[in-house]
């Protein structure tokens, strides 16, 4: 038994630690949604799951280089929250971004091509897994410095307010980023200046190999909001409908009142921090325990329960998703490398002399 | 009977050996042929064998020390023999380490005073073309990049430029200064000359000399050239000399000393003599099996008389003053025309000068007076337009043609002499710099 597990048992907290072991409180009624929306959400979660599994395969074949941070297990957070957004709302996130990118609308083809470092990638092959960008869907990246995206998000929200466009910005980050000064500086400014920004913390309980308990004197992220008088909410990140509802509440706050929200979504990643992580800091049992609350499994069960999904539907969707992923891989495989000239382009928007 | 062990010749080219290791120590028994020591020669380390039997009584030279061939390095004898005499002669026989070439003995001449050899050494013989990498042995030539470029473009010889930058770096300012100077054919810069003084009242006889055996190459050149060009294989070198400063100097001297009546030819004689001292290979003569190099310059001055050409000799013109030379030339030429010259006054010059300038001859080639190695033919000095730094200027120009005996003087050697001659004649103040 690892020392971390012992520590967690000893430091069992009532407010936060236990929630994820229980189904969501609150009645997120499916009946308020149309079937199309729900199926789309389910499809997206499945697509992200299969896409990430394919990434793991491609990475081990050497087709993806550098770092590859997989989203497997956290699909409900991205899909649930982004499903509540307007298409022109902004999303900005960290390097564990494939899920958000696909949910926001970047095609799996261009994402895979970017991962393969091809010219047809969404960042022309110059960003890679950690720097996916797509201005056409207001997907603002992909940032590799932990917490670096948080002040950027604050600025994007500032611009929306300045231009009076009513747009909302959602900023995703892990619980370990909460320790960065940039987090605190940003929340302070966001509340001070009333910026329409949703700070969405994906608490998967581990910052690389360090559990939250080992990194934070007070590991209750949502509670930290009181330091900034900012609205906050604690959500079961394995429940896609709970995520959707929580995000909708925050969006209303942002659009109507131009106020920020801090959402803490409890979730879990089934794979390691990245493809290079041997994952020795967690036990097999722990992972299996959280796999019982696999967000896709949970949602599928609920949809089937409510007669919105049959086994055939699932088979069809799986087939569709399989094709989509195959298409993405083929596209990436067939695409050319960037031209050598691309080495020295895009350094300046206005190159001089 | 005690014997000396001497440094043996252990290789054909060995001249001295170093004792690397003694294989026997004092008191050891030695038998004939036994190895006595290891000697480092110029080629290898060789074993030295004993040439007598007995006991090694004395080691005269330690490990690591050297001795020339034949020097006693040990004594072998009977154990109780008296070797004191042998020891004395052994240690006394050590000759001086330096092999000084004994100076060539001067022929006993009653009035030969101690003659100082001029200490001015000529510039190391090198190609006339300047190349910035070549430098006298005391280090790299430092040149700033722009200075190197300017020098190359302007044809300035870097070797002739004194660098005023740190560590003697030649810099832009130095090249600018060199470009403003009148061109002196870009030859090597002359060092100040040591002008030895003639002893007052001394009378000079024919110059002392030394004979050197001819090298194989020299013999070959002589043999082959004679068959192609007649008895003396001549070749000719011409140069045009800017005489303005020499002419000015003559005028100033004659203003200061009206009685001196120094002529241009007198200046030419003096300059030739000084230049010959710097180029001793020209102040020489072909002596069949040897080449004779003279220590002084005896200039034969061609004088036209009714009966023909005669060359009275100005002895040791290299040490005589201009005024003395002028006087001597006048006097000798006068007696030459009166047919009152003694043989020793017109024979045995080391170099001759013939001047037909007064006849308006621009240039001509003279025939060498054997056994001299060269003769200088001087043309008229006339004002001419010449190009200087891209501008036309008027200067007094004079052409000099040197005939050389190819058996003794090669092209480059003759040319270098002529270059020096021209440099001094164009800047006659060199004569008075001294060292």
């Amino acid at each position, binding site marked *: 038994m690892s020392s971390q597990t012992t520590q967690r048992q000893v430091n069992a907290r009532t407010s936060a630690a236990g929630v994820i072991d229980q189904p969501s409180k609150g009645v997120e009624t499916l009946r308020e949604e149309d079937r199309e929306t729900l199926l789309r959400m389910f499809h997206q979660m499945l697509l992200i799951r299969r896409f990430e599994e394919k990434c793991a395969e491609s990475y081990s074949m050497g087709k993806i280089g550098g770092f590859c941070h997989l989203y497997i297990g956290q699909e409900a957070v991205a899909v649930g929250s982004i499903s509540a957004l307007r298409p022109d709302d*902004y999303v*900005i996130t960290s390097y564990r971004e494939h899920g958000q990118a696909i949910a926001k609308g970047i095609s799996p083809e261009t994402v895979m091509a970017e991962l393969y470092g091809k010219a047809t990638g*969404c*960042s*022309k*092959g*110059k*960003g890679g897994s950690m*720097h996916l*960008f*797509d*201005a056409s869907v207001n997907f*603002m*990246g*992909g*940032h*590799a*410095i932990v917490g*670096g995206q*948080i*002040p*950027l*998000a*604050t*600025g*994007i*929200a*500032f*611009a*929306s307010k*300045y*231009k009076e466009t009513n747009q909302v910005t959602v900023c995703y980050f892990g619980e370990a980023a909460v320790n960065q*000064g*940039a987090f605190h*500086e*940003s929340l*302070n*400014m966001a509340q*001070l*200046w009333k910026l329409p920004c949703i700070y969405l913390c994906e608490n998967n309980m581990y910052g690389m190999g360090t559990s939250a308990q080992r990194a934070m004197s007070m590991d209750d992220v949502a509670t930290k909001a009181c330091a900034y008088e900012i609205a906050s909410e604690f959500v079961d990140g394995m429940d896609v409908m709970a995520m959707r509802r929580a995000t909708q509440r925050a969006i209303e706050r942002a659009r109507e009142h131009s106020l920020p929200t801090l959402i803490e979504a409890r979730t879990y990643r089934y794979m390691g921090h990245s493809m290079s992580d041997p994952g020795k800091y967690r036990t097999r049992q722990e992972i299996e325990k959280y796999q019982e609350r696999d967000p896709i499994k949970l949602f599928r069960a609920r949809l089937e329960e409510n007669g919105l999904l049959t086994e055939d539907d699932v088979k069809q969707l799986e087939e569709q998703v399989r094709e989509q992923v195959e298409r993405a891989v083929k596209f990436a495989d067939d695409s050319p490398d960037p031209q050598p000239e691309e080495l020295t*382009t*895009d*350094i*300046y*928007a*206005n190159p*001089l*002399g | 009977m005690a014997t000396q062990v001497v440094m043996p010749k252990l290789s054909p080219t060995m001249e001295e050996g170093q004792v690397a290791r003694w294989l026997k120590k004092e008191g050891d028994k030695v038998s004939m042929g036994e190895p006595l020591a290891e000697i480092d020669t110029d080629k290898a380390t060789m074993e030295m064998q004993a040439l007598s039997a007995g006991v090694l009584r004395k080691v005269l030279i330690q490990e690591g020390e050297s001795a020339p061939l034949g020097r006693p390095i040990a004594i072998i004898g009977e154990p109780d023999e008296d070797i004191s005499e042998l020891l004395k002669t052994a240690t006394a026989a050590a000759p001086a380490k330096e092999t000084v070439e004994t100076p060539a003995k001067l022929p006993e001449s009653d009035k030969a005073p101690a003659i100082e050899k001029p200490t001015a050494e000529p510039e190391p013989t090198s190609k006339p073309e300047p190349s910035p990498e070549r430098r006298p042995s005391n280090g790299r030539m430092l040149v*700033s*990049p*722009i*200075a*190197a*470029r300017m020098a190359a473009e302007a044809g300035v010889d870097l070797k002739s430029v004194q660098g*005023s*930058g*740190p560590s003697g770096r030649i*810099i*832009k*300012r130095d090249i600018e200064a060199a470009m403003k100077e009148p061109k002196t054919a870009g030859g090597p810069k002359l060092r100040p000359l040591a002008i030895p003084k003639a002893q007052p009242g001394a009378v000079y006889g024919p110059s002392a000399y030394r004979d050197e055996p001819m090298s194989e190459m020299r013999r070959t050149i002589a043999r082959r050239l004679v068959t192609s060009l007649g008895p003396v294989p001549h070749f000719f070198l011409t140069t045009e000399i800017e005489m303005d400063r020499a002419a000015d100097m003559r005028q100033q001297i004659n203003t200061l000393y009206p009685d001196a009546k120094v002529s241009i030819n007198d200046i030419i004689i003096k300059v030739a003599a000084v230049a010959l001292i710097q180029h001793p290979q020209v102040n020489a003569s072909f002596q069949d099996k040897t080449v004779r190099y003279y220590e002084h310059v005896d200039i034969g001055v061609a004088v036209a008389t009714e009966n023909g050409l005669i060359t009275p000799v100005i002895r040791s013109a290299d040490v005589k003053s201009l005024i003395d030379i002028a006087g001597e030339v006048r006097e000798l030429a006068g007696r030459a025309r009166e047919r009152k010259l003694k043989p020793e006054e017109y024979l045995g010059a080391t170099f001759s000068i013939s001047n037909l300038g007064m006849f308006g001859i621009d240039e001509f080639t003279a025939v060498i007076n054997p056994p001299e190695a060269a003769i200088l033919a001087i043309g008229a000095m006339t004002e001419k337009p010449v190009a200087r730094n891209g501008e036309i200027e008027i200067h007094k120009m004079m052409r000099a043609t040197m005939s050389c005996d190819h058996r003794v003087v090669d092209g480059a050697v003759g040319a270098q002499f002529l270059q020096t001659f021209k440099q001094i004649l164009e800047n006659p103040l060199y004569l008075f710099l001294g060292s």
Partner: protein
Amino acid sequence: MAVITMRDALNDALREELARDQNVFLMGEEVAEYQGAYKVTRGLLEEFGAKRVIDSPITELGFAGLGVGAAMAGLRPIIEFMTFNFSLLATDQIINSAAKMLYMSGGQFKIPIVFRGPGGSAYQVSSQHSQAIESWYAYFPGLKVVMPSTPADAKGLLKSAIRDDDPVIFIEQERMYGMKGEVPEDDDFTIPLGVADIKREGTDATIVARSLLVPTALKAAEQLEKEGISCEVIDPRTIRPLDIETIIESVKKTNRVVVAEESHPFCGVGAEISAEIHERAFDYLDAPVKRVSGADVPMPYAKNLEQLAIPDVPQVVAAVKEVTYS
């Protein structure tokens, strides 16, 4: 032509650009109600309002990142650092976000932001408040670095920097805010970035100087003129991209170069200029390039020590004499 201080010239530039483009806004510590720590932003709050001229908390990393994010979303922020010493806190956002955004997004997100403020030494403000760190920022492709030395240059260059679509590090000098100079009164007066200025023509030596050392170089040139040495003084104005061509043309003419700067010598802008001159104009050099830099020490407090740490006219004069072998 008006004769105004550098402070006022900068103020004019800000005012004109805020008026010209609604997307331009200004944020920093004390820029609004305090009228600017150095009065450079005086009067702007009153004229443009709190939406566009914003006082920030002391939160450099935060507001620098906010500026970059706002630029991503289409605004043109001017972010003031009270001094560039404090920009060190913000370097992650300046370098990892601003400098790289366009490149790593494959050309999708340009960052038209200006980070401005005073850099270099002041008067006895000691080591943490006196750093000249332009070479830090000039190191990164993706950033532009500008350093004006006169009121006219300050105004023209700041306007161009604000209109430029790339992140510009605009480093002023506190000691020079009060300097007076002629400035064209045209309200569209701009000076292009990336163009050096020959502040004084000469033939014997080139002095390349920036910011605080430009007046020093000019004084040295005047003194040297009396001694028969004619100096050409070049102010690069933009450090990155550097107008090396103008400098090289001058080197070809004079053959000797002195670089004068208040920053440390090691890995400084002077080292870069020297390297480029040696690479491109080696054959024109009469002497190696000589740098006159600030002392390689943290800035001391004591007045006399501080003076020793900053190059003065005699030092520049001596350097020119060294390269001209005078």
